[in-house]
């Protein structure tokens, strides 16, 4: 096991050379590898000078959690253990982060819902931990298959939510996520989502920098709240403002704190833009009147549909949302200029992304938003399903 005190000004405790996020993400030479999302997450964590990780088994994130454990055994991660269940794990993560650790964990579907109370607590205590959410369906009936309904439950937790499309994005995003979450003027937790199995278990080509470099460590003394480590003089404070008294000041404190959390998420925008090279990525025909607004694997399938539509002489574009919280409203509005109809393909039955898009655009844009197609419970979303949605709209009443 490593010792944190082995760290020097230029090397972390495992001997990796410390570099900036800009160097790691944009400048360091990369070589090609072929790996799954779970394997690439190990590579990302390996390069992030991570202090702590807590794990718990649930399909499909278990392998990623095992691999972080291997990093601990290899001396790259400082603290690692299996918690008792996801509620416990997320509380243990909170404790680790409050005590000043760069902390990461992973979960999926039922685990997310079991742990739910913690996510609002995370943002309320302004800890910059990272959750890798490998989305899967929610019971009942029992399913272990990809479905991102669980993300809808996370939308108003006060956490940042980013959504990676593929293995490469998971690698880059999960590194950038620590950096953005830890900015002193942001300092709220971040949830990096991928679609379970489609990304966690799919082997893809991925470009990685060498593993002899790693991010500078987290400095908890730059946080907006002091870490719970008894290193600052003991004073009378709680980590979260304690407002259980029944008076106006306590109500106002609670309300303003909640606003502040949401403001902090918005303050992440310039940083996210820099490290993600934009909150949305637009591909396809710039002058198209048809667009697809999607995130994650659905945007990959939308790109397939875009190629098929091109063969039919129909122009379209894909607007991939890379951040869900903050919601990239300005960028989406810009991308929708000239678009008459936008489809929102999703891997869930409720259409949470469609609702979010409509809420953001209401009264600001003339584009008609069509929710669909939607698949769930593990069903795949072939490009044909998306094409059918488009054709039914274009040839209304005449069938696809």
């Amino acid at each position, binding site marked *: 096991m490593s*010792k*944190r*005190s082995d760290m020097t000004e230029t090397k972390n405790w495992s001997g990796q050379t410390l570099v900036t996020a800009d160097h790691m993400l944009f400048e360091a030479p990369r070589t090609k590898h072929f790996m799954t999302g779970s394997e690439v997450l190990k590579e990302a964590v390996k390069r992030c000078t991570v*202090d*702590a990780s*807590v794990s718990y088994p649930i399909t499909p994130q278990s392998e990623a959690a095992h691999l972080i454990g291997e990093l601990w055994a290899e001396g790259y991660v*400082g*603290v690692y*253990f299996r*918690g*008792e*269940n996801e*509620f*416990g*794990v997320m*509380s*243990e*993560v*909170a*404790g*680790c*982060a*409050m*005590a*000043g*650790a760069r*902390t990461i964990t992973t979960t999926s579907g039922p685990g997310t819902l079991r742990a739910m*109370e*913690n996510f609002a*607590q995370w943002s309320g*205590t302004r800890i910059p931990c990272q959750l890798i959410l490998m989305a899967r369906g929610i019971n009942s009936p029992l399913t272990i298959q990809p479905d991102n309904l669980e993300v809808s439950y996370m939308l108003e937790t006060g956490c940042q939510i980013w959504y990676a499309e593929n293995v490469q994005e998971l690698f880059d995003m999960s590194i950038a996520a620590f950096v953005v979450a830890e900015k002193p003027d942001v300092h709220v937790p971040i949830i990096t989502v991928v679609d379970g199995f489609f990304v966690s278990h799919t082997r893809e080509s991925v470009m990685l920098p060498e593993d002899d470099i790693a991010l500078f460590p987290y400095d908890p003394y730059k946080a907006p709240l*002091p870490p*719970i*480590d*008894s*290193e*600052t*003089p*003991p*004073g*009378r*404070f*709680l*980590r*979260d403002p*304690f407002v*259980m*008294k029944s008076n106006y000041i306590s109500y106002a404190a609670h309300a303003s704190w909640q606003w502040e959390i949401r403001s902090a998420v918005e303050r992440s925008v310039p940083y996210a833009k820099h490290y993600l090279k934009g909150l949305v990525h637009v591909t396809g025909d710039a002058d198209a009147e048809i667009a697809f607004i999607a995130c994650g694997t659905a945007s990959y399938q939308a790109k397939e549909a875009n190629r098929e539509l091109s063969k039919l002489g129909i122009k379209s574009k894909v607007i991939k949302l890379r951040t869900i919280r903050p919601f990239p409203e300005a960028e989406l509005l810009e991308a929708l200029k000239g678009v008459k109809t936008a489809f929102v393909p999703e891997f869930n039955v409720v259409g949470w992304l469609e609702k979010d898009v409509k809420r953001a655009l209401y009264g600001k844009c003339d584009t008609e938003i069509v929710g669909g197609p939607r698949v769930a419970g593990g069903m795949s979303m072939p490009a044909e399903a998306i094409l059918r949605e488009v054709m039914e709209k274009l040839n209304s009443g005449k069938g696809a």
Partner: protein
Amino acid sequence: MGTHIYKINPEFRDIMPKEIIDLEENATWSDTTDKRGIKELPETKELLEEHSLCAGCPEAAALRYVLAALPKPEDTVIVNSTGCTSLMFPHIALHTVHSLFGNQNAVATGIKRVLDWRFPDIEKDVVVLAGDGATVDIGLDYTLQSFFRQENITTICFDNEVYANTGGQESGATPKGQVFKMAPTGKKFEKVKMWELAVTSGCHYSMNMTASAPKAVAKAVREAIFVARYLGPTFLNIYTPCILEIGLNANEGLREMKEQDKERFAAFKFVSPEAEELLAKLKEEGRL
């Protein structure tokens, strides 16, 4: 007495509240030559600044004893939970955490493990202090799991045998037959003997007691923290009756605790052989 931990910047001294200045001038912190303890309570600045509990609440008295007994308060983090205890924590001059209802031992686990990782050469104590609802009911899993995992944490349960802060509902620690809200015809099952569960779950030191004797509480706290620091989990179950919910006056809490010293809270003390050895050694060194 160690009074040189808390130093106020002279530039700000004139705007500091009196209780902060008092902390600098007259509060005690760890000192190897003169142990902190109950005897200093009348003379020194306490780490608890007033509190918002009911007049005569035994829980408030017990917290004063606990704080006076901490061997190294300036390196102690207290994790608490929702309930009456949580009302006192904003008034404590230590790093404290209120997170959720019931997750106190999980949060404490994360904190303790990271403090050991970040500060391998400094002894930092993590103490959980929560009520019986938090410890025995909603947080039982997390409490026991931290014992199973052998976390170096001291867990103190202020057992008032009822959900007091929410208005007097039956808890797992309520004695059988007691009528409380949500048990309108009396509780149907026995009081959970958490101190026994602590032993079978791996605690090296477990006690059941009341807060009637301040010195006894202080001794138990000090011993439990040392054992947790060097060996593994420790547990104290301390009766702090809710005088409001059992119909007593503000001056009757002490009598109630004394009566229960012979009843449900008759002294139970388990010390593992390793802990016995450790405590004997610490005594020899003058640290106990």
